[in-house]
């Protein structure tokens, strides 16, 4: 009995040895990201050149959320070196000490937009929250039109995320883009409530918005840009849209070798040619100011960072949401109950 246990133990040790080769020779590295086309674009744009240069394979895992990251740190078993986080959740993760500070000198990236070069994360992917509508419906020019349900009749679908919905209501009330924050949540919700009869769906999954439009369940929607720009039946406008960033962050306590490898991956993510390849998979763009000329001419209007689009948008204030998200969410739940 004892003997068998010992043998089993020895076998287990050997197994561990196989899984974790000497840290000198890193063969693969894990990343938790949001999956789908976005994950594919990481493979095509960044993992491919990274693996070609270093011989390290990037294994993707999805989906991820803050709870999963927190559980990973709490359990002490760091199974992934990097984690994709939204701008707001990255601030939370930073406050909770779940992610490493980045060594930008070691990364030595090519030029990038300043908001993407965060102390704790690499803003690798811009995505916009914009208005979209069925081509058959009357086209709104701005958020005032979008919230004018009398002259622009039709059902609306809006995100079931306060951070992606409330600000647009304030824009329709005439609040200028640069004066949105601190956000007047009560005023925004009041505006939303005023059109509650026309709000048909609060969507949770990004794919819902285009589907609802195509099914004619709603005629207007607030949607994530990458989900609507390539739909032939739908029209969209970046005017007054919100640019936001997805970040890749290094997980707190990841092995040194993996952290160093991550720096090399971050560098690949800053190369505009690589970003252009990623944008070929999904209509979201990387943080390089030099990206526009590399993008296909006929599709330039689809991308969040194309000059014409970036100029008419405003950038999400993740810090404000990290501070006020919970109280705003309470009000959001209240709003939903009174719909």
């Amino acid at each position, binding site marked *: 009995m004892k003997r068998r246990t010992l043998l089993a133990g020895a076998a287990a040790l050997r197994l561990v040895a196989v899984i974790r080769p000497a840290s000198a020779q890193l063969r693969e590295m894990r990343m938790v990201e949001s999956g789908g086309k976005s994950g594919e674009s990481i493979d095509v744009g960044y993992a491919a050149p990274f693996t070609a240069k270093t011989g390290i394979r990037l294994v993707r895992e999805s989906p991820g959320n*803050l709870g999963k990251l927190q559980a990973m740190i709490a359990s002490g078993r760091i199974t992934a070196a990097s984690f994709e986080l939204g701008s707001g959740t990255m601030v939370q993760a930073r406050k909770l000490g779940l992610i490493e500070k980045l060594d930008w000198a070691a990364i030595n990236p090519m030029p990038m937009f300043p908001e993407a070069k965060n102390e704790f994360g690499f803003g690798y992917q811009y995505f916009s929250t914009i208005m979209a509508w069925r081509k058959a419906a009357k086209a709104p020019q701005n958020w005032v039109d979008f919230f004018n349900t009398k002259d622009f009749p039709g059902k609306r679908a809006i995100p079931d995320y306060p951070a992606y919905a409330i600000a647009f209501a304030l824009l329709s009330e005439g609040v200028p883009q640069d004066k949105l924050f601190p956000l007047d949540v009560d005023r925004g919700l009041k505006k939303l409530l005023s059109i509650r009869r026309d709000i048909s769906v609060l969507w949770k999954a990004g794919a819902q918005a285009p589907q609802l439009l195509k099914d004619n*369940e709603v005629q207007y929607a607030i949607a994530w840009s990458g989900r609507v720009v390539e739909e032939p039946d739908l029209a969209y406008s970046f005017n007054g849209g919100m640019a936001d960033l997805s970040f890749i962050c290094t997980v707190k306590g990841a092995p040194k070798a993996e952290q160093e490898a991550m720096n090399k991956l971050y560098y690949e993510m800053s190369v505009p040619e690589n970003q252009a390849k990623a944008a070929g998979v999904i209509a979201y763009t990387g943080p390089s100011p030099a990206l526009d000329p590399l993008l296909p001419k006929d599709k330039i209007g689809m991308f969040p960072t194309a000059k014409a689009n970036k100029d008419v948008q405003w950038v999400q204030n993740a810090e404000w949401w990290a501070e006020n998200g919970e109280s705003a969410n309470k009000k959001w739940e209240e709003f939903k109950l009174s719909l």
Partner: protein
Amino acid sequence: MAAILAERRHGFGFVTPLLVVMLAAFNLPILYMLALGFWSKQGGFTTEHYAALFDAPIYLRVLANTLRISVVATLVNVAIGYPLAYWMRGLSPRAQFIAVACVITPFWISILVRTYAWIVVLGNNGMVNRLLQWTGLTDAPVSFLYNELGVMIGMANVLLPFLVLPLFAAMLRIDDRLMQAAASMGAPPRTIFLKVFLPLTMPALASGALLVFILCLGFYVTPAILGGGKVPMISNLLDFLINQIPRWEQASAVSTILLVVTLLIFAAYRALDRKVGA
């Protein structure tokens, strides 16, 4: 005899450590979660997370909404499931097999696929609405989805097997001769059903309904999609508290209240069951 007993105790002794480990492994996370609700950021015991709940009772209102939806969904399930099981009982064994297969199939289809399938069927441009408009029954599409009705339909579809299968099994076990006996004593069909058949299926009905109710409380995907996000449920709230802004303490307090409510309902069921059984 004594030897056998001793041996049995001995055999049990072998598995006891395993049982202890399993109990601990299954319950430790729950205990940890419960404890979290009383843990202050500075360390030490606190009731602030509960106090916060009662100060701004919106989370409790969501909980109440969840309970209400679950009760209605359970009743809808019973209203559909009981007659369905009753009808299946009267079928030939072959037809019963087919019926059971039909009831179980939803189990094998991903809940997400099933939920989206309802959109295809019940949407404004869906099959049902097109049929209704084609036959001239309505001129505008009927809103089946993105309201509580949609949530009910989706929940009934997902949860019906949990009610129908135990109920059907219980009904099959009822000896036909009991109903015949009642008939021979002059009872009309209504009396036979109310006094003989229904009471005999009551335990299965009650436990099936309880199961459905508890599953309803944890529903996530269906209310989010078929309810158009306008039917707030506690699980969506918990997702927010755990995954969007990690307020695990707050989530723990909400879950604890949910757990207590569920246990109270279960206790009420047990008390009722015992009273009926006595």
